[in-house]
Structure formats: structure tokens, C-alpha cells
């Protein structure tokens, strides 16, 4: 029996570090997926802080019905850029650029991504695109102000003239190409660079989810890119694709946008689902419950997500309601399977409440709220009732705040792998409680004010004591969330190089916990035999392998 597979060309002890540039030059010229992933992580977290700052201004403005903190024009820019920064520049890149870039190659025993230079290009396009989009604030007309969805014809040159809108389109094109290239890279890496023994059904769930995410990126993002080019042509080249005057169809933009936009929801969510799956399993000391069901649930979610875009357009009156309603309701089924599998993973386990696990549980509860409120919106009559009110805003903020918690769980869990140092657990738990309580205080009043008729994207609203009270409560929640971010930054400063992690601080199960923290240049000097989706666990706990169900089928070990 082979205990450890040696890489033929490598020795058991670390070779001397390869010669190469260091410092700034290294950062600028690197093609190492771990360095690129770290750049992605830092950039995305900075974007989260910027987008969060916009949110705090928005909540301050809405704390009183006739707020005067910002003008109507500035308010439109703020919520547009809040949504754009959070979706395009934080959540997406953090999901498939940051942790995916670092962890996926290590989880499958690969030395790097399949196309390291393309990977570097992805990052630089992302950074350039982000700066391009944000630079709109420094133009005379201000940043884009037509909402993050840029509905035509509000987004044409007549209704929204100025460079801010063009910079928004340009920035989005650049980050879109960045996403497409990352998608190509992930698919190629996962299909071609898996270590010997790592069959598809031995891949960790995180890697599975990133594979499905990458395929969704390749199906959805080119549509957005095409739409943006059409929009730019309408603005500057005299075409009339989205304007009635020239024989165009404004609602076509909504179709194109949401044909990207709804898969995008799952492009954001699936990587975080994967993170949570791994974290719950490790901190319960059990395998992922219903592993294959989890994979099929992920694939079903992705498949269904390509046929639900028009549920964002129920109130347009020009889409087939029953089809899109049924498809949207059905997504609840695989999502429910995931939730029950997460509970099943904890069931009869030994649940350790580390900061990462608390964040994952916070995700579970918050995502439950966001998921259940989403089911209402799949029903056209209920959507007519709540569309474009704060109910919808509350729904997707429950979802994305759940994803933020999952991302934080990912940072507490995998951060030690790529930095070599643990974060402080106590400060992490303090951060969790601010984030969790803050999220509920922020979102729950928004559901109620939406049901009382408050539309989204308004800077001032009618005097009504209930509306004001609920808005104030929500603003308090936003402040708590802001504090949690400060606590996180404080933890980064406090824990800086303080707690060395070692290769496997959490008794992890997957390959990344077999190598050093941080991993060497090409990730592994040696690999354990891969006979299940938990090679590191099998190696460390040979007497505690997965209990097979039914008659024992030779697992080759």
C-alpha cells in the first residue's frame, strides 16, 4: 500500500525557493494563483468597504423622510454605485476570483491554474475595470445614476448623458471579460489538472460548485457583454436597439440583462454554498451529508437558473407568466435539499463553534430567510404586489448578507491556509454577533416597510410614522453591520503574524490541508492517496473512513 505519492521530480524536503522578483515587482509580474488570489481577496474586500460606505450614506439619508444629507442626483448615483460595486466588484470577484483562485487548484492537487498568465490578466482587468467604474465620481456629471440594472431607455444618452455612465459601461465590460477568462481557467483547471485518483466524484463540494459556477459564467457573461456593447452603440454610434423612436425595443435590454442577471445570482451564490458545505463538514467532524445529492442539487440550480430570468419582469406585462413562475418555484427544491444536507452534516456530529462555523451557521439562518422570501416573488400575483418595493430589497439583502457571512466564514477558515496565520477567534466571534444581529435588524424592517408600500430607490418618502420608524431601525442595523466590518479590520491588524497556523489547524478533510500553510510555489511536495473526497482525513484518520451505505463496494483503499 502506498502511503504517500511523491511527485517524481520533487524531493520530500522543500527545495530552495525559486529565484525571482520580490516585493512590488513580484506582485506586478506574478502568475502564481495564490498571489493573484490574494490580490483578488484584498481588492474585493476594499470594494466591500467602499460599497458598504455608500450603503451607510444611503441609510443615513433615509433615516428621515425628507433627508437632506445628499441631493436627489447624488442619491441616485449612490445607490447605483452601491449596487454596482457590491455585485460586480465585490461579490462576484470575491466568489470566483479570490478564494476560488487560491483554493481550487490546491483542493484538486494541481500546481497552479491551467492558464496562469490568463489568470493574471483576469486580475488586472478586474482591477482596471473597478477603477474605471468608480472614476465616474470624478467626472463633471457624476457617476452612473440609472441603478445597477441600467434599464433602457433611462440609460441612453438622452436621459443619462455624461461620462459617468460610459465609465460604468466600460468598467463593466472589463470586469466582464475578467470573469469570462476566470471561467475558462476554472473549467480547464478542474477538467485537466486533477491529481491522480481525484475522479469527478472525489472532488470537494467547493470545487464542484466552482466548476458549475464557471460553466454558468461562460453561458451568462457573454450575453451581458453583448448587451453592454449594444447599449454603448445606442449611446454613441446612433443605433436604436433599445429606443422606440428608431424602431428599437426597450424591454430587450431587460431580457438581455436578466438572462445574465439571474444566472449571476447563482454565480455569486454557488461558490459561497460550497464554502459553507466544507466548513460545516469540517467543524462537525463528519463527511458532507448527501455528497452526491449536493452535486446534483448544484447542477439543477444552475440548469434552472438559465430559465428563470423573466421573473424579474413579471410586471412588464410582456412575458409568459406560468412558465417563469414554475421554473422559479422549482429552484426552491434543490436549494432546500442543500439546507437539509447542511443540517444532516451537523446531525450526530461534534459541532465546534469556531468563528468560521458561527459565520456558516449565520449564513444558514439568514439564507433561510432570504430563500423563503424569494419563493413569494416567484408567484406573479405576489410579485405584482411587492415588485420594486422594499420587500424585494429586503429579500435580496437577506441573501447577499448571508453570502457575506459565508465569505467571512471562508476567510476565517481558509485565510490561515494562504497567509500561514490564524485570525483571533474571540474577535471573530464578536464580529459575527455584530454582523448577524446587524443583518437581521437591517433587513427585517425593510420587509415590513416594503409591504406597507415603500418603493425602492427613493431619496425622500411621504411622512408616515411607521415608515420612519422602520427605516430608522434598518439604519441602526446598517450601523451594526458597519461596526462588524471595523471589528474585522481590527482583527486583521491585531492578529497580524501572531498565531502561526500549521498545515492543518482545523483537522481539515480535503487536499489543501495536506500541504504547508502557505503552500510552496507549486503547492505540493507530496500527496496522500486519493480514495475518497476526503484524502487528508482518510490519511489522518484511517480508522474513521466514511461508513458506506448498503453493501460495501470496494473503495480501493
Amino acid at each position, binding site marked *: 500500500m502506498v502511503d504517500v505519492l511523491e511527485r517524481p521530480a520533487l524531493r520530500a524536503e522543500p527545495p530552495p525557493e525559486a529565484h525571482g522578483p520580490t516585493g512590488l515587482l513580484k506582485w506586478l509580474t506574478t502568475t502564481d494563483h495564490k498571489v493573484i488570489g490574494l490580490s483578488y481577496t484584498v481588492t474585493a474586500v476594499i470594494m466591500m468597504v467602499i460599497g458598504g460606505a455608500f450603503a451607510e450614506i444611503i441609510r443615513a439619508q433615509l433615516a428621515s423622510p425628507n433627508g437632506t444629507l445628499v441631493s436627489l442626483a447624488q442619491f441616485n448615483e449612490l445607490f447605483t454605485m452601491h449596487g454596482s460595486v457590491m455585485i460586480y466588484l465585490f461579490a462576484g470577484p470575491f466568489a470566483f476570483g479570490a478564494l476560488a483562485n487560491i483554493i481550487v487548484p490546491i483542493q484538486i492537487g494541481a500546481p497552479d491554474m491551467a492558464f496562469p498568465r490568463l489568470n493574471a490578466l483576469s486580475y488586472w482587468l478586474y482591477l482596471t475595470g473597478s477603477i474605471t467604474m468608480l472614476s465616474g465620481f470624478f467626472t463633471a456629471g457624476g457617476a452612473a445614476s440609472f441603478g445597477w440594472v441600467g434599464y433602457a*431607455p433611462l440609460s441612453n444618452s438622452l436621459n443619462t448623458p455624461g461620462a459617468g455612465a460610459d465609465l460604468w459601461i466600460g468598467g463593466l465590460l472589463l470586469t466582464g471579460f475578467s470573469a469570462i477568462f476566470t471561467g475558462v481557467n476554472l473549467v480547464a483547471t478542474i477538467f485537466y489538472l486533477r491529481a491522480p485518483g481525484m475522479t469527478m466524484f472525489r472532488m470537494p463540494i467547493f470545487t464542484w460548485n466552482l466548476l458549475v459556477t464557471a460553466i454558468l459564467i461562460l453561458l451568462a457573461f457573454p450575453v451581458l457583454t453583448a448587451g453592454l456593447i449594444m447599449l454603448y452603440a445606442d449611446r454613441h454610434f446612433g443605433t436604436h436597439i433599445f429606443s422606440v423612436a428608431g424602431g428599437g425595443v*426597450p424591454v430587450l435590454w431587460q431580457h438581455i440583462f436578466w438572462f445574465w442577471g439571474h444566472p449571476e445570482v447563482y454565480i455569486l451564490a454557488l461558490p459561497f454554498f460550497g464554502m459553507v458545505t466544507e466548513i460545516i463538514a469540517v467543524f462537525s467532524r463528519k463527511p458532507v451529508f448527501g455528497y452526491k445529492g449536493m452535486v446534483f442539487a448544484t447542477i439543477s440550480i444552475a440548469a434552472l437558473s438559465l430559465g428563470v430570468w423573466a421573473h424579474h419582469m413579471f410586471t412588464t406585462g410582456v412575458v409568459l407568466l406560468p412558465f417563469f413562475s414554475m421554473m422559479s418555484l422549482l429552484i426552491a427544491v434543490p436549494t432546500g*435539499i442543500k439546507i437539509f444536507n447542511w443540517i444532516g452534516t*451537523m*446531525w*450526530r456530529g461534534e459541532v465546534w463553534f469556531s468563528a468560521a462555523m458561527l459565520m456558516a451557521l449565520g449564513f444558514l439562518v439568514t439564507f433561510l430567510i432570504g430563500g423563503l422570501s424569494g419563493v413569494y416573488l416567484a408567484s406573479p400575483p405576489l410579485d405584482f404586489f411587492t415588485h420594486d418595493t422594499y420587500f424585494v430589497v429586503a429579500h435580496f439583502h437577506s441573501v447577499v448578507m448571508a453570502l457575506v457571512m459565508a465569505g467571512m466564514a471562508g476567510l476565517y477558515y481558509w485565510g490561515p491556509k494562504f497567509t500561514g496565520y490564524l485570525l483571533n477567534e474571540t474577535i471573530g466571534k464578536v464580529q459575527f454577533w455584530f454582523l448577524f444581529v446587524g443583518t437581521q435588524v437591517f433587513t427585517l424592517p425593510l420587509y415590513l416597510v416594503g*409591504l406597507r408600500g415603500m418603493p425602492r430607490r427613493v431619496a425622500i418618502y411621504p411622512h408616515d410614522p411607521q415608515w420612519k420608524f422602520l427605516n430608522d431601525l434598518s439604519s441602526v442595523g446598517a450601523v451594526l453591520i458597519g461596526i462588524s466590518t471595523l471589528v474585522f479590520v481590527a482583527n486583521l491588524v491585531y492578529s497580524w503574524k501572531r498565531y502561526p497556523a500549521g498545515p492543518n489547524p482545523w483537522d481539515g478533510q480535503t487536499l489543501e490541508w495536506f500541504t504547508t500553510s502557505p503552500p510552496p510555489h507549486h503547492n505540493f511536495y507530496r500527496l496522500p492517496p486519493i480514495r475518497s473526497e476526503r484524502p487528508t482525513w482518510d490519511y489522518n484518520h484511517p480508522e474513521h473512513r*466514511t461508513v458506506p451505505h448498503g453493501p460495501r463496494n470496494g473503495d480501493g483503499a
Partner: protein
Amino acid sequence: MRAALGVLGAGLILSGCTVPSFGASPGDTTSSRSVFHLWQGFSLGAALIGGLVVVLVLWAVVRYRRRSERIPEQHQYHIPLELTYTIVPILIVLGLFAATMVVENKEVANPRTNVTIDVNAFQWGWKFTYPGTSAVVVGQTTQTPTMVMPVNTNVHINLTSSDVVHGFYVKAFNFSRYALPGVLNQFTLHAVATGTFFGQCTQLCGLYHSLMWFDVKVVTPAQYQAWLTAFHGPAAAATAAAAAAAVRQQTSSITPTKPATSTGTR
């Protein structure tokens, strides 16, 4: 102790007779009431499923919290259980879909009507035209226009937009529809109570989106006829034209004082 439990039990049974509103309200049209009941149905399902999941999570968290370095049994599959939580949700979804279809088919049906109102949305106001009569109401931002319509009557609405996408939304009707440029959107409102209801544009339409308000005044058919007749004659037409011209002036200072709650009688 036993008495307290008895009171609690009786309270639960009594409250079980009426389904809670879950934050919504029945509203003042026939459709808004069926939408409200659909809302209650969905909410009951959500409360039951959400409650079950929360109980399971809490149980797992309390019962299985780590007490030792023991390594638990490494179970991974339980096919009958997994099938159960695949099939039962599919059945629930089919039920929700059926209920949705029943309400939706009623709501989007366009029955024959005697009263038609052409609603035109523009940046940033509303124009209500009554075909076959000389009645026109137009207003923007702070000059909130009022759409007058008769109670207990099917009122046919033709909704259009002159420029960008707007949203026609009346909270008391539990209903909204986009006003899309180049598209004629048609629907029927059937109010069951008189009163004045607040309406607002819900789709971002530019600078003064926050202030694109209107009122819907539901009156008795007799009052409605009287209101229409007041528009007859050249004098009335001239007044309407003057009013339309006045509202085209850009509004510079804005002070919203409109109460959000409807004053409708139930």
C-alpha cells in the same frame, strides 16, 4: 400552572381561527383580496417550513455541540430521507403553483368594461385621460394628480409611457404594472371601497423618481358621472389646458407632506 397552560392553549385555538395577515393587508379591490389570501397561504407554508428548519438547526447546535475529542460515526448517505426532502418540496411547489395560477388567471383576465382610463406616465408625472369624454387630469411631482374612478365597476386601464420605464403602483390595490415605452399594457381594476388611495412610481425613472406621486380617488358611480360632466364645455377645457401647462414648469423646491396611508373606508 395548569390554568396558565389552559389559557395558552385556548388562545392558540382561538387565534387559529383567523389566519394572521403576515404584514400585508387585504386592500380595496377584488384582486387585492385574492392576492392577500394567496399571501397568507404562502406565509403559512413559509412559517411552517422555516420553523421546522430553525428547530432542526437549533437542535443540531445544542444537542451535537462538541463536548469531547470523540470522532463521530462517519455516515454520509440516507437515501430514503434524502428522497423525502426532495419529493415533499416538489409537492409543496406544485401546490403553490396551482394556488398562484388560480389567483393570477383572475387578476390578469380582462373582462368587458364600460369605463376606460388611459394612463400615461412621463418624467415625472401622470396623465389620466378618459376616452369618449373631455376629462383629462395631468400633474407632476408636487402637483399630485388624482385618478378618479367609480366603485364596484370594472375599470379598464390602458397604461403607456412617453419616455422611460415607470411603475404604476397603488399599495391599496396590492398591484403594480410597468409603463413601458412602446408597449400598451392593459389591466382591469375593480375597487370595492370608496376613498382616496396613494399611488407612486416604483420603477427608477430619473431625477425626480422619488416624487412621482398620484392619488386614486374611488367614488360612487353617481359622483363619477357628476365629476365627468364638470369637464364638459369650452371653459372647462380651457382650465384643463391651463393646468396642464402650469405643471410643465420644473419644480425646484420639494417638500413632501403626503400621508402614505390611504383614507379609504373599509
